[in-house]
């Protein structure tokens, strides 16, 4: 039985290593993209659309940071859609009315429905959707609009950073987002980015032509990304443009978020399964399938490796008992007995992780914590594996996870 496990670990490690090497090769080719600085010459009018539901604690901060950004005031329109809030969101936003912030109220229908409602009110050529708990960096919008100079670009995303960096969980997520930003930029450099989270700039004409956000999915940001790329348009990523977001600070809220993300991605990929294949180049043949299976690879390596190790541990305990726990004989009999596929896998996983860390740190000019990275690799990966299993379970049982 253990030979089957070794074989599975071998295959899974091969696939995992292949994917990692591919991204490293891509980075070596596209490193310049991380340092590109586009200059904006014209300032088109942008409507900022903020869907809000029970956001009283955070919305004024969001609006204040928005009003401070470096963009001509007369070219900026701020629209908040109150998605059936039962708290003081509406009152708080109304106070910003004198600063030009418009607010509309509707019955609760979810973020996508709020966005679609707001889109009807947008008349500018560009719309920026902004989550209620996200704060834009001052120069973020300028940088996003600059990316629109490429006609193929239908949408622009930003690098996401954690705003509430108080606890261990948040700091681990900050490392995680650094890696996500890195991989988003890499995939964007070959026009294969397919997700549009947190704060996204769109050409309004896309929605007029192809419809708005999918109101049935749990992850409308992934779905819209797939929709845009399915029509052969591009999503650009301005790497040094930042948006700060509030991340979950407890494991249970993190779990709910991540299970929702993974479940949503399964459902969205199912909806857009026509995108898998040669027609969409590397996106359809490599990136999208990889999004589907990369956590599966993680689970296999972690849990099979763990099972194997626990099994061997008890087997060894049994032998030790027969030897009256004499460790000297135990190790002298077969000193190489512990060197097998798992050591090989562990070594290379560690090596690849280290290389990735070095590359990500390069792009961030050193601003990433080694300590939290180590915690991320050693502990957080187990959480991710568990969340993935839960998401797969929901998907297979055809049940929707609770928000």
């Amino acid at each position: 039985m253990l030979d089957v496990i070794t074989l599975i670990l071998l295959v899974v490690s091969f696939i995992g290593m292949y994917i990692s090497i591919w991204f490293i090769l891509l980075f070596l080719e596209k490193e310049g993209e991380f340092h590109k600085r586009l200059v904006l010459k014209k300032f088109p009018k942008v409507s900022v659309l903020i869907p809000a539901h029970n956001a009283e604690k955070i919305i004024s901060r969001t609006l204040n940071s928005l009003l401070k950004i470096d963009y001509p005031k007369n070219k900026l329109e701020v629209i908040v859609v109150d998605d059936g809030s039962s708290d003081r969101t509406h009152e708080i936003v109304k106070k910003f009315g004198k600063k030009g912030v418009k607010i509309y109220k509707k019955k609760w229908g979810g973020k996508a429905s709020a966005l679609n409602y707001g889109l009807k009110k947008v008349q500018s050529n560009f719309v920026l959707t902004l989550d209620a708990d996200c704060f834009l960096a001052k120069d973020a919008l300028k940088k996003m609009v600059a990316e629109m100079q490429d006609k193929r670009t239908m949408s622009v995303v930003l690098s996401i950073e954690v705003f509430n960096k108080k606890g261990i969980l948040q700091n681990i997520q900050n490392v995680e987002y650094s890696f996500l930003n890195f991989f988003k930029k890499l995939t964007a450099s070959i026009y294969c980015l397919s997700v549009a989270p947190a704060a996204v700039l769109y050409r309004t004409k896309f929605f007029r032509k192809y419809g708005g956000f999918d109101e049935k999915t749990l992850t409308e940001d992934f779905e819209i990304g797939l929709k845009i790329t399915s029509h052969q348009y591009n999503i650009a990523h301005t790497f040094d443009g930042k948006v700060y977001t509030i991340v979950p600070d407890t494991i249970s809220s993190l779990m709910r978020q991540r299970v929702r993300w993974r479940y949503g991605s399964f459902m969205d990929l199912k909806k857009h399964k026509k995108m898998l294949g040669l027609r969409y180049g590397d996106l359809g043949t490599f990136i999208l399938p990889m999004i589907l299976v990369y956590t599966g690879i993680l689970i296999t390596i972690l849990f099979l490796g763990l099972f194997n190790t626990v099994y061997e541990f008890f087997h060894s305990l049994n032998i030790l008992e027969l030897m009256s726990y004499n460790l000297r004989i135990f190790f002298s009999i077969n000193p190489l007995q512990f060197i097998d596929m798992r050591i090989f896998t562990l070594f290379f996983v560690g090596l690849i992780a280290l290389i990735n860390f070095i590359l990500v740190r390069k792009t961030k000019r050193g601003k990433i914590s080694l300590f939290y990275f180590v915690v991320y690799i050693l502990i957080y990966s187990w959480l991710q594996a568990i969340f993935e299993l839960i998401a797969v379970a929901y998907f297979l049982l055809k049940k929707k996870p609770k928000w």
Partner: protein
Amino acid sequence: MWKRNLNTGRHLQSLIVTLSIFALGIFLGFYISEMRIKGMLTTYESLTLKINGAILQTRVLEGELCNYDVLSIAGKEKVELGNQITELEGLRGKTDEEVLRLKENYSLLSINQLLLLEEWTKECNKNISVIIFFYSNTENATTSEEQGFVLDNIYEKYPNKIVIYAFDINIDNPAVNILIKKYDIRTAPTLVINEKVYLGFQSREKIESLI
């Protein structure tokens, strides 16, 4: 309309690099086991020379047997060689040709030594217990394995009081077969402690009481 392309060049490069890394790992594994085998053959050869030398000496120089420390030949080197063969078994599997050949040579070596030792303990009144361990990797393999660990432990405790010889009953070797016939061995594990036969697994306490 603009389309995304599939960059086959990059995929080919990744495949080559990944295959190279895996090939390197596999090669390293083979290299290590080859090195271990070379080391074992050297030990085996030196041990054979020692034992044959001892046998010759005792035959030629009558009455010299008791001045000879036969136990020193049956000591550390032999045990180490036995352990190395176990290690190779683990690396290459119990049916590997190289492993089986080494085991057969080791068995012949052991029998030569065993005969010499039995003569030495009888004639020279030495208080050494000789344990012959018949094992199998096919029938009752786990019990044989466990018996082996118990014996390793006992040898560690009483290295100057006992000598252990282990023979695989599945090896079709005339010398081993003679021993099997002599003690009428039918199953494994079976222990022969000071010429008395004990069938099945024997615990540490039981063996300690007999030596």
